[in-house]
C-alpha cells in the first residue's frame, strides 16, 4: 500500500528529465506559431476546432497530424484543437483520396457541422487522389465531394507544413 502511495506521489510531483536529446523545434516553427496564435485569436476568439476524417489514407498523414499535437510541436498552444464531434468543429480536415465506401460518411460529417464551415485537405491523396487517382474505387480527391478551402501539400506533410497552411488559410478568411 505504502508503495502505491509513494509511487503516486512521485509521479504527481516529479517532473522527469528526458534524456532524448532535445529535438530543436526550429525558430521558423515558433514564429509561424506565434502568428497563428494571433490570427486565431482575432478570427476565432482563441480557439480553432478541427474535426479530422480519414477517407482512405495510408495512415502516415494521420501520424503527422498526431505528431503536430505532441509535446514538441504542441499545436494546441497556438489555439488549434482536434475535436471528437463535428458539431464542435470550425473546420473539417480530410485525408485520403475518398474511397467509395467513405463518401457517405464524409458528406454526413460535413452536414453535421454548423456553418460557416471550412474544409481543409491534407496530403497528396486528398488533393486529387495522389497515387490512387486511377483507381476504380476512389473519387480522386475531396474536391469532387465537398467544397475545399485550402490544401496542405505533402506525402505526408510535416507538422510545420500544417501550421503554415492553416496560417495562410486564416489570412484569407474574414
Amino acid at each position: 500500500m505504502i508503495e502505491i502511495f509513494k509511487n503516486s506521489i512521485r509521479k504527481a510531483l516529479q517532473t522527469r528529465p528526458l534524456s532524448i536529446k532535445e529535438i530543436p523545434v526550429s525558430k521558423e516553427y515558433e514564429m509561424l506559431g506565434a502568428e497563428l496564435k494571433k490570427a486565431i485569436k482575432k478570427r476565432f476568439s482563441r480557439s480553432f476546432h478541427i474535426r479530422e476524417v480519414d477517407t482512405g489514407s495510408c495512415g502516415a498523414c494521420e501520424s503527422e497530424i498526431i505528431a503536430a499535437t505532441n509535446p514538441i510541436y504542441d499545436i494546441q498552444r497556438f489555439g488549434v484543437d482536434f475535436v471528437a464531434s463535428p458539431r464542435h468543429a470550425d473546420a473539417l480536415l480530410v485525408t485520403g483520396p475518398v474511397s467509395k465506401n467513405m463518401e457517405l460518411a464524409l458528406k454526413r460529417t460535413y452536414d453535421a457541422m454548423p456553418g460557416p464551415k471550412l474544409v481543409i485537405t491534407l496530403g497528396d491523396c486528398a488533393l486529387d487522389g495522389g497515387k490512387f487517382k486511377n483507381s476504380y474505387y476512389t473519387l480522386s480527391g475531396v474536391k469532387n465531394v465537398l467544397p475545399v478551402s485550402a490544401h496542405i501539400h505533402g506525402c505526408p506533410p510535416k507538422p510545420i507544413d500544417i501550421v503554415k497552411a492553416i496560417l495562410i488559410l486564416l489570412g484569407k478568411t474574414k
Partner: protein
Amino acid sequence: MNYIKIFDDIEEKYNLKPLSLRIEEKEPDEIYARVGAGDFKPMCLAMHKYLHSPVMSFFAVDERKEKGVFGLLCAFQSIEFKKWVFITTEVPKDNAEFESLSKDIYSAALFEREIYEMFGIVPKNSPDTRRLKLHEEVWPQGNFPLRKDFDSKKIKDSPKSEHKLKEVEGDGVFEVAVGPVHAGLIAPGHFRFSVAGEPVINLEIHLGFTHRGVEKIFENLSLNEAVSLSECVSGDSAFAHSWAFCNSIEKILKINVPENIQYVRAVLLELERMYNHVNDIGGIAVDVGFSFPSAFASLMKESILDLNEKLTESRYLKNVNAIGGVLCDFNDDKKQVLIQNLEMLQKDLNELKKMILSNVSFMDRADSTGILRKNIAEDLGVLGPAGRASGIDKDLRKDFHGIYDKVKFNSIHCLSGDVSARLKIRFDEFEESIKIVKQFLDMIKPFESKKEQLPKIKEGYALGCAEGWRGPVLYWVKIDAEGHIVRCKIVDPSFRNWEGLAFAMPGNIVPDFPLCNKSFDFSYSGNDL
C-alpha cells in the same frame, strides 16, 4: 534435408495420392505443387496439418487470356525446411468455382471471401461469402475488379444490397454501433458490439472503408513506380512493405543484394518497428487515461522519426528502398548519430517501463483484459506480436531471413494473450531491436548511395517477405517480359490478425475496447488495400 520428404510424408500419413502432382522448386525457398482441381482441397488440408501452418496467402490469378483458366494459389510456410509451399490448381473460366476450404481451415475464410468478391470465383459450400471490401451498399453486383477484362469506366449497374451484420438476439441484448468515423484521429472502420448487461457478447468488425483498389493499381505499373506505391499501402509500415516488394522483384530478376545493403535495410526496419511499438505503448497508456507516459512515449516516437529523417531524409522511411539496394548513403557520422540515439532511447525506455509497469492501477486495467487464447489465435492464423503475445512463437526474422542469422536476439513470446502481454511484447521487442541495430551497425561499411541499374527484365513470379512490426508482410508478384506487373497479391499482417480482436473482446466491457484495440493496433489501410 530434402523437401520432397514433405510430400512423401503427406502421402503416407494422410494416405493421399494426388493423381496429378507436379512439384517444382522455383526459388531456393519456394516450392510450387500443382494439383488437379479435385486434389486441391485435400492437399491444402494435409499441408495445413502437416506443417502446422495457417494459410499464409491464398489468391487467384486471371490467366483466361493465355490459358483459358484462373489460377488458384494457396501458400503455407514450412519453418523446418525454410520453404514457402504453394499448392496451386486451375479453375475453368466458365465454371469458376472450387471446393471451399474455410470449414476445415479457418484461416482460409477471409481469403476465400476476397477471391469471390474480386474475381467472382465461387468457393462452393462456403459458410460466408459476404463481401469484405467492396461494400454491398455502394458496389453493384457482378463487377469483379481484379479480372483482367474489368473496365472501371463500364461498371455494370445492378442492384445494391445492404451488408448483413450477424444479429445477436435474446433478453436484454442491445447493440452499440461505432464508426466508421471515430472520435479520435484514427482510420475508419465499423464496430458493432452486442452487449448483455455490461459484458460484450459479440463484436462484429466491418472493414473495407479505406479500400482504394491497390492491387489493381499495381497492375501495369513499371517496377520503380510500384516501389513507391508499395510505400503507401500502409503508411506506418512503408519500409516493410517496400522491402517485401523489392524482395520479390529481386528474386524474380535474380539480383543479389550486397550484404552490406541488407544490413542497412535491417537497421531501418528495426527503426520502423521501434517508433511504432513506442507509439502503441503510449496509445495503450492514454486509452486508460494515463496521459503522462503517453506524452513521454510520443516524444520518443518523435525522436525516432527525427532520426529516420537524419538517416534517410524521410521521417517515414519513404523513397529509401529501391530494387537492388537503398537510395540513402551511410557514413561514419550517421553511425555515430545512431549509436548516441540508441543509448538515449534505451534510457528513455527504462523510464517509460518504470512509469507504466509499476503503476498498479494501470496494470490492473491491462492484466487479463482482452485475452486471445492460443488455440483460437492459431486457428485464425494470427501472427506477429499479436500472435507472439498469445504464445505463437513465429517470426520471419528468425524463421526465414538469412541476414538475421548474423545477429543474436531473443524472439519474445508470452502465453497470457492479454493486453499486458501485448504491452510487454512491445517493450521487449523494442529492446531487442536496439540490440539488433547495434550488432548490424558494427558490420556496416560506409557507402555512397547510387541508383542501381536493373538487369535485363524477364518474366516470372516470386514471393517477397519482410517481418514488419505487425508481423509478416508478403508480396507475391508476377511480372511480364516488359517488366510490367501482371498480378500483385499483398498480405498485410493486419488482414490475418483483425479477427483476433473480435475473439478477444467477448466478456470484456465496452470501455475496454479502445484499450484492447490499441494493444493490437492493426492497420486499416493495409487490411483494406
